[in-house]
C-alpha cells in the first residue's frame, strides 16, 4: 500500500492528530490529568486498498495543567473507507510515564462523595475563560470524556474540540463510581459548527473514565 510523507502541520495530519489525541486522552486521562496536542513531529499517510487511509503520527503532547510537561507518543489512525459510522481505529504508544495523579484523584473523589447535594454547575468556563479551582477537575473530566465523543465521530473531514461545558449534573450512585451527566458544546473546525452533545460519564480513581452513553443534541436552527 502506497505511503507518503505529509507536512506535519497542515490540515490532513492535524485532523488525524487531533483525533488521536482525543482518544489517547480518553484512555489515559482523568480529573487530574488532561493531555492536549502540542505539535505533530511527523506524519505519513498510507492508502490501503479496500480498507481506508492510515495515518502514522509522531506527536508531542502536553499536560494541560502544566504546559512545560510534555510527552512524546506515536499513534496510528485508520479511517475506514465507505462506512462513515464506524469510528476510526486508533493505536498509540506513549514514551515514558505519565504523571501519577493518585493524590489529586482521591481528594476529588472524596470531596464529591461527601457532598450533601448532587453537584450541579453551568457554563464552565464562563464567557471570559474563568474556571474556579473547585470546578477544574470537573472541567478536566469533560475534556477527557469528550475525547471519546471526538474519537467516535471523527472523519478525515472533521476536527473537533471541546468548546465548553454548558451544564453538568452529578448523578448519585449506590456503587463506588462517580457519575456525571454533561451537556457539552463541541466546536467542529471545518464546518465551524457548534454542536451540543450529551454524555454520561463514569469515573473511579482505579477504573478510569468511561462514557456510557452519549447523544448529539438538536439546537434551534436559527440560533
Amino acid at each position, binding site marked *: 500500500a502506497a505511503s507518503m510523507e505529509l*507536512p506535519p*502541520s*497542515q*490540515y490532513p495530519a492535524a485532523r488525524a492528530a*487531533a483525533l488521536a489525541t482525543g482518544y489517547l486522552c480518553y484512555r489515559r486521562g482523568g480529573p487530574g490529568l488532561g493531555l*492536549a*496536542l*502540542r*505539535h505533530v513531529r511527523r506524519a505519513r499517510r498510507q492508502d490501503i486498498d479496500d480498507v481506508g487511509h492510515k495515518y502514522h503520527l509522531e506527536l508531542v503532547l502536553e499536560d*494541560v495543567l502544566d504546559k512545560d510537561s510534555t510527552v512524546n507518543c506515536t499513534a496510528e489512525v485508520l479511517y475506514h473507507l465507505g462506512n462513515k459510522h464506524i469510528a476510526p481505529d486508533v493505536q498509540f504508544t506513549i514514551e515514558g510515564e505519565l504523571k501519577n495523579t493518585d493524590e489529586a484523584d482521591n481528594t476529588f473523589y472524596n470531596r464529591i462523595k461527601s457532598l450533601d447535594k448532587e453537584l450541579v454547575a453551568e457554563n464552565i*468556563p464562563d*464567557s*471570559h*475563560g*474563568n474556571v474556579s479551582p473547585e470546578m477544574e477537575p470537573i472541567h478536566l473530566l469533560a475534556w477527557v470524556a469528550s475525547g471519546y465523543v471526538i474519537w467516535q465521530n471523527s472523519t478525515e473531514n472533521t476536527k473537533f*474540540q*471541546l*468548546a*465548553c461545558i454548558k451544564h453538568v449534573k452529578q448523578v448519585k450512585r449506590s456503587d463506588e463510581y462517580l457519575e456525571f451527566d454533561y451537556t457539552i*458544546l463541541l*466546536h467542529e*473546525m*471545518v*464546518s*465551524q*459548527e*457548534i454542536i451540543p452533545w450529551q454524555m454520561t460519564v463514569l469515573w473511579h480513581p482505579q477504573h478510569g473514565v468511561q462514557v456510557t452513553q452519549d447523544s448529539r443534541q438538536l439546537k434551534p*436552527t*436559527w*440560533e
Partner: protein
Amino acid sequence: QKVFRVIPQNDEQVEIINSLASNIQVDFWQPDSVTLVRPNMQVDFRVEAEESFEVEDLLKESGMEYRVLIDNLQAALNAQFDSKARTSRHSYEKYNNWETIAAWTADIAAQNPDLVSRSVIGETHEGRPMYLLKMGKSGPNKKAIFMDCGFHAREWISPAFCQWFVKEAVETYGKDTVMTTLLNNLDFYVLPVVNIDGYVYTWTKNRMWRKTRSKNASSLCIGTDPNRNFNAGWCTLGASKNPCDPTYCGSAPESEKETKALADFIREHLSTIKAYLTIHSYSQLLLFPYSYTYKLPSNSEELNSIAHAASKQLASLYNTKYTYGPGATTIYPAAGGSDDWAYDQGIKYSFTFELRDTGRHGFILPESQIKPTCEETLLAVKYIANYVLEHLY
C-alpha cells in the same frame, strides 16, 4: 429627592438661598457650603422630596434663574448601578464589551491627537457605527497598512489585539525605534471590530455566535459569515449556500453592510494601502493567499518567507508555535475571504492571523492569556510592517 441648579443674580437672591438653607435641610453639591455662595455663581443643591415643592415655589416667586438638574435622585443612582455596560472600565488585559470599546476609540483619539484620529466607515446591520482608527504621524504621501479585528463574533482575543496594538503605538511612539519609524513613515488603519452586531450578541445572548446578525430572506436563520462574503471565488469552495450554516456566504458578495463598508474603504484608499492584515482565532496560524483556490499567488515565495520570519519573531517571546502557509492547504479551502479579495485588488502583502490557542481553550481564551498573546503577536505584526516599509511599491 431633587437636585436644583440656581444662578443668583445679586446679593438679594444670595440672601434667599441663605435663608432657605437655615430653614430646611439643604445639601450643597456646589459650592461646598452656603457661605461660599456669591452672585452669578452656579449653585447646585439637593433637597428632600417633601420640601422640593416649597423650594420650587420659592424660586419661582423670587424670579431667580433655576432649573431642576436631577428630578429623581434615587432613580438616577439606580440607573447608574444597573447599567453595567456603561460603567465598565476599559482594560487592555480584559475583554471589553462593545460600548466600552466604542468609548475607548473616542478617548484614545482625543488623548493622542497627533497620532490617532477616528472616523466612521459605515454602519452595521443593526445601525451601529463602524469606527476606524487612523494611526501615524501626519505627513505627505504616506503609504498605509490596513488591519482589522473581530470578523467573527466569538473570537474575542481578536478585538483585544487591535486595542493592544493601538495602545502600544501611542505608548511607545518616541521610545521604541521600530514603532517610531513605522508611525513616522506609514499610516495604520485599525478597525477594532468589524462584526459589531455579532460581537454584542456574544456578550448578550450566545457566546459561540460567529456570523453577522442580518436577516436572511426566506429563512428563520440569521447571519452571514463575513469571511465568506467577499468577492474572491465567492461561494465556490468551503462556504455554504444555506443561511442556517456558520459558513453561509450571503446572498451575494458584499451583501453585508459591514463587509461592504470595509471593501468600499479599501477600494477608496487602494493607492495608499500596501498591506492587509486580518486577525482571527483560534489555531495559531499565519496564512496568506489563496484560500479560494489551491493555486499559489505570484509572490508566494516572498509571502512564505515573510510568514516564516514573522512566526519566528512571534515564537521568540514565549515559544508559541505558529504554522504558516497558503490558506487552502494549511487550514482548509474557503472562498470569499477578505485576505484573498484584498490580494486580488493589488495589495501584495495580505495575511490572516489565527491567534491562540490550538484548541485547549479555543474561542474562550482566558483573560490571563490576553497580554502574552498580544505581546507575541505584536512582534509579528511589527516585523511584517517593517518589511512592507522596506519594500514599498
